[in-house]
């Protein structure tokens, strides 16, 4: 009997999601015993032409991580969609846009200018920029082009399931593989993680006051963080109440507030707006000036509340003047 074929691919992401596969440790042997990995550029030497040569729908499941922000990534997303029966958006970047999605506060031109010219650590006297075509000694190389707007995977192709996290935990990956192998999958479009807020599974849950009001917001480096007490009650912007659980409160166990990488639960449309709403209502003041002062310590609202989800938010990107 032939084993189901599985592919892993990496688009606009840091590589952390690939690390999840490696972090399966010995359990990866069970995975490899059950499936054939036919494409995994980070670890195995298969090329794009190998994928192109496969019959359509011959890959049982493709785990694609990373947002889509270049022409090449867009092409690969379409190719892998065509070759795969099930396509999973793996990790925050593919699901929500992720950290690279914060580039939606800028445009291609401003991104390139910063990275290739303005950045203080750069030495680029000739102002060289990446170009689509490069010719040298009669050889010509084509490079992909950067998009103005970072996209989530499902803004480019049809996605069957989502595995959340930055990166997803090995446990979630294993559960997803088992669900795929066992054929007991939830309805299409589901997020393969529990559908409750992180606070539900937080070990500090019981230390959260019934009525929580705050007169100060602190950033982690400004506080001596108590290791037992609810982080919100300590004035830290812990995204737990507006974030899906399933990570088993890894960051909170490390005494750091949740930054929201698991995205919203199914009942929330725009997790950033919801988190903003939750924290603003906790301000213990009815005076406009005082409110402004207390909320003033939230340095970067978009970067705080949409850290992983700007491209999937209602506004998707910073407005571009027409």
């Amino acid at each position, binding site marked *: 009997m032939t084993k189901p074929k599985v592919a892993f691919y990496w688009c606009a992401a840091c590589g952390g999601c690939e690390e999840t596969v490696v972090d399966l440790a010995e359990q990866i042997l069970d995975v490899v015993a059950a499936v054939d990995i036919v494409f995994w550029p980070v670890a195995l030497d298969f090329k794009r032409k190998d994928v192109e040569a496969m019959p359509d729908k011959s890959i049982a499941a493709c785990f694609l991580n990373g947002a889509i922000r270049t022409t090449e990534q867009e092409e690969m997303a379409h190719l892998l969609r065509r070759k795969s029966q099930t396509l999973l958006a793996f990790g925050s970047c593919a699901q929500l846009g992720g950290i690279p999605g914060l580039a939606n506060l800028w445009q291609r031109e401003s991104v390139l200018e910063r990275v290739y010219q303005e950045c203080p650590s750069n030495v680029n006297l000739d102002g060289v920029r990446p170009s689509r075509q490069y010719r040298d000694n009669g050889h010509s190389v084509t490079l992909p082009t950067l998009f103005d707007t970072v996209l989530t995977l499902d803004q480019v192709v049809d996605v069957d399931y989502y595995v959340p996290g930055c990166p997803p935990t090995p446990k979630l990956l294993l559960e997803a593989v088992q669900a795929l192998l066992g054929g007991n999958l939830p309805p299409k479009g589901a997020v393969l993680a529990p559908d409750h807020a992180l606070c539900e599974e937080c070990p500090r849950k019981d230390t959260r006051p019934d009525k929580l009001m705050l007169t100060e917001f602190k950033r982690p480096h400004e506080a001596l963080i108590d290791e037992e007490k609810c982080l919100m009650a300590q004035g830290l912007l812990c995204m737990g109440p507006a974030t899906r659980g399933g990570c088993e409160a890894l960051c909170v166990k490390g005494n750091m507030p949740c930054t929201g990488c698991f995205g919203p639960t199914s009942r929330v449309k725009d997790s950033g707006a919801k988190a903003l709403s939750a924290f603003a209502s906790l301000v213990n003041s009815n005076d406009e000036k005082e*409110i402004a002062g207390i909320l003033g310590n939230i340095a970067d609202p978009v970067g705080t509340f949409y850290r992983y989800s700007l491209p999937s938010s209602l506004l998707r990107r910073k407005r571009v003047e027409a």
Partner: protein
Amino acid sequence: MPDGNHGPFEPRIVAFFCNWCTYLASDLAGTSRMKYAPNTRVVRVMCSGRVDPQFVLDAFARGADGVLIGGCHPGDCHYQEGNYKMLRRFHLLKRLLAQMGIEDERCRLEWISAAEADKLKAAVNDMVEKVRALGPLHLAIPKEEFAEEEVAVS
């Protein structure tokens, strides 16, 4: 009613009015036959505190040029502190909108009691004029164009 798609630009303002104050003020403006700019689409909510920031973003995302929120005066909330919750959210929401390139005048919070039909009229007229001066919001994601970087393959 101008739809904003044909002819000169007519701002589309989505207005969230609280059931107990501002909505009654708009009712009073109507029964008093007051005339004011017809550009608002009013959504009645039970309390300005019910206005989830998601509603505001959704309105902008779906083509509103401005969003007006009307609630009871501080201290007058039917539910005691719903309008204060709105006030707190509004402050943070405005900072977020500024980061997203949406001008200050496009999102506005007004305290208008059930008796203040004239204040409602003034607020709507003023907002419509300010948004008209700004022009359409145009939030559409621009099409990706790479033409300027294309080099003919030799």
